[in-house]
C-alpha cells in the first residue's frame, strides 16, 4: 500500500494539478465517477489569493504527441474555493491535496496557512512555476530564491508541503535540494515546458490568447524521466513523478527512476479513466516484473 507522507493511498497514481476537475467531471459522468474514482488522491487546480478568469482563448494547441496550453490558472480565488469547492471535494472517496500559487512569499504564506487550516485538506502542493515580477523567470527556477520563499512559507502550516518544481531551469536537482533544505516534505515534477504555438495562418503571431504556453504529454516524457532521476538522486524526500505518462509501463519507468508516486495529466484528456487504467496496468506490470510499486 503506497503512502504519501503518512497518507495511505490505494495505488500510486494521482492526477496532475489542473488536469482534472472532479466537480465538473461529476456533472459529466454522474455518480459513476465516485464509484471508480481514477486517482488515489485528488490534486486541485492551482488556487490563487484573488480570483482569476484565466487567459483569453484560444488556450489549446495540439503538437506532435503532446499539447501546449495557456489556460492562465483560472480559479475562484482562495475564499470561494474554501467556501464552495472544498465541501464538495470533501465528498470524494480519496484524500485531497490543494495546489496553490502566489507571486510573493507573503501571498503564498497566506494561501498555505488558510488551506492548511482546513481539515478537508490532507496536503498542500505549492506551484512555484510562477514568474517573478522583476526577473520574469519562475520563482522556482533559482535555488536561492526558492529557498528564501520556502523559509517564509513553510512555518505557516503543519500539513505536508509538496513543492511542484519548475522544469524550466538549468539544474532541477539543485532546486529540489533547496526545497528539501527549506523544509519541503516532498517534491513533484515535471510541470509543463515553456513553449510557443504559432498561428495556423502562418503569420507567425501567437495562436494562444495568453502568448506563450506550456508543453505536456508523451512528447516530454523522456525529459521528465531525466529530471525525475536527477531529483530522486539528489534528495531523500519523496518525489512525485509526472510528464507524458500514458500506461502502467510508463508509470513503472518513473518509479524505477526514483519516484514514490506518479501523476497523470494530459492522458486523462484522451481517456478520462486513465488514472485507474494506469494503476491496474502498473499493478500487473509490477507483479510480472516481480517488483512492488513503492
Amino acid at each position, binding site marked *: 500500500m503506497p503512502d504519501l507522507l503518512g497518507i495511505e493511498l490505494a495505488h500510486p497514481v494521482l492526477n496532475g494539478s489542473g488536469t482534472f*476537475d472532479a466537480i465538473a467531471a461529476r456533472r*459529466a459522468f454522474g455518480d459513476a465517477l465516485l464509484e471508480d474514482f481514477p486517482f488515489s488522491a485528488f490534486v486541485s487546480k492551482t488556487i490563487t489569493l484573488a480570483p482569476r478568469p484565466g487567459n483569453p482563448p484560444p*488556450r489549446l494547441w495540439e503538437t506532435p504527441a503532446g*499539447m501546449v496550453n495557456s489556460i492562465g490558472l*483560472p480559479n475562484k480565488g482562495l475564499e470561494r474555493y474554501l467556501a464552495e469547492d472544498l465541501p464538495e471535494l470533501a465528498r470524494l472517496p480519496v484524500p485531497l491535496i490543494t495546489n496553490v500559487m502566489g507571486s510573493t512569499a507573503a501571498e503564498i504564506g497566506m494561501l498555505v496557512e488558510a488551506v492548511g487550516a482546513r481539515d478537508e485538506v490532507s496536503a498542500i502542493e505549492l506551484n512555484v512555476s510562477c514568474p517573478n515580477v522583476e526577473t520574469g523567470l519562475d520563482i522556482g527556477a533559482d535555488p536561492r530564491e526558492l529557498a528564501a520563499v520556502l523559509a517564509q512559507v513553510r512555518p505557516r502550516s503543519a500539513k505536508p508541503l509538496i513543492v511542484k518544481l519548475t522544469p524550466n531551469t538549468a539544474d532541477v536537482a539543485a532546486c529540489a535540494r533547496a526545497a528539501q533544505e527549506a523544509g519541503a516534505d516532498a517534491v513533484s515534477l515535471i510541470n509543463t515546458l515553456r513553449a510557443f504555438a504559432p498561428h495556423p495562418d502562418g503569420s507567425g503571431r501567437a495562436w494562444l490568447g495568453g502568448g506563450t504556453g506550456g508543453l505536456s504529454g508523451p512528447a516530454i516524457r523522456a525529459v521528465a524521466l531525466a529530471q525525475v532521476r536527477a531529483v530522486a538522486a539528489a534528495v531523500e524526500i519523496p518525489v512525485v513523478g509526472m510528464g507524458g505518462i500514458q500506461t502502467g509501463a510508463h508509470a513503472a519507468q518513473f518509479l524505477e527512476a526514483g519516484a514514490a508516486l506518479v501523476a497523470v495529466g494530459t492522458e486523462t484528456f484522451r481517456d*478520462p479513466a486513465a488514472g485507474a487504467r494506469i494503476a491496474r496496468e502498473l499493478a500487473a506490470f509490477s507483479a510480472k516484473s516481480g517488483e512492488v510499486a513503492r
Partner: protein
Amino acid sequence: MSTAPFGRRALRVTGRRELGAYVVLQAADPAGPSPAPGQFYMLAAAERWGGGGDERPFLPRAFSVLRASSDGMLEFMLEDVGPGTERLAALAAGDGLWATGPLGRGFRDPQDGRRALLCGGGVGAAPLAILQDDLLARGLPAPALLGFRDAAHAEGAALLQNPRVATDDGSIGRQGLVTDLLAAELDADAHATVYACGPPPMLEAVRALCAARDVPVQLALESGMACGFGACFGCVVPLAEGGYARICVDGPVLDGTLLAQVPAH
C-alpha cells in the same frame, strides 16, 4: 440530458457513407445511454491515431451526435478539415472507435408557445437533425433553414426533413446566406425560438439578428477541446457578463443572451 458512462468506450464502426462533401459515420454503442439533441462525443480512432499531418492527431475530437437509434446506433457527420477528421473519415465498417459521451448540455425546449426554428450552416446541420427528429416525434413542428457553400456541401441537407436551403454560389436553393432566410422568417413571424449551429460568423449573425428582434436563440457552439468533460479549461468562450464558460460542460448549447459576440474560434 443524459450523463455519460465514466471513461471512454471502444465502439465498432458499423457503416460509413459519403454525402457530397461530408462523411456520415455510424457506430454501435450498445453500452451507452441515448444522447439528447445537441450533446456531443469525444472520438478517436482506436488504431493509429497519430502520424498524420504534423504528426497529429493526438487528442480526441468533438462531434455532435447526428442521429441516435433506440438500438444504440450512433451517427456522426464529418467534414474533413484536418488530421483528426481526415483519419476518422477514413474509418471503415469494423474499425475500432474510442468514444466518450454523450457530453455537454444540449438544446432546451421552446418556451411560452414559441415555435422552433432550426438554422444551420454547413456541418452545423448535424445537431439539428437529431433535434428535428426529437421535435417531430413529439408532434412539434421543426422547420429547418440550412446554408451551404456549394452543391457538394448542400447534399448534407438530405439529413433533415424538407429544409429550405441557401448556397453561397446559388447552385442549389436560394443564392445567399441562411441568415437571409432566417431574417425573412422572423420578419413574417417573430414568435419563435431559434436553434442554430454553424461556423462562427454565421452563428454571430444569427445571434445579432435574434438579439435585434428579441427572439430567443440557442447557439450550439464549437471550440478547440482537449478533454470534453471540464478537465482542461481549454474550450472557453467569453461571456457578456465577463469571465468565461467552458462550452464542454456549460454548453455546447448556450443561450444567445449569454454572449456579447460569438468568438471567431
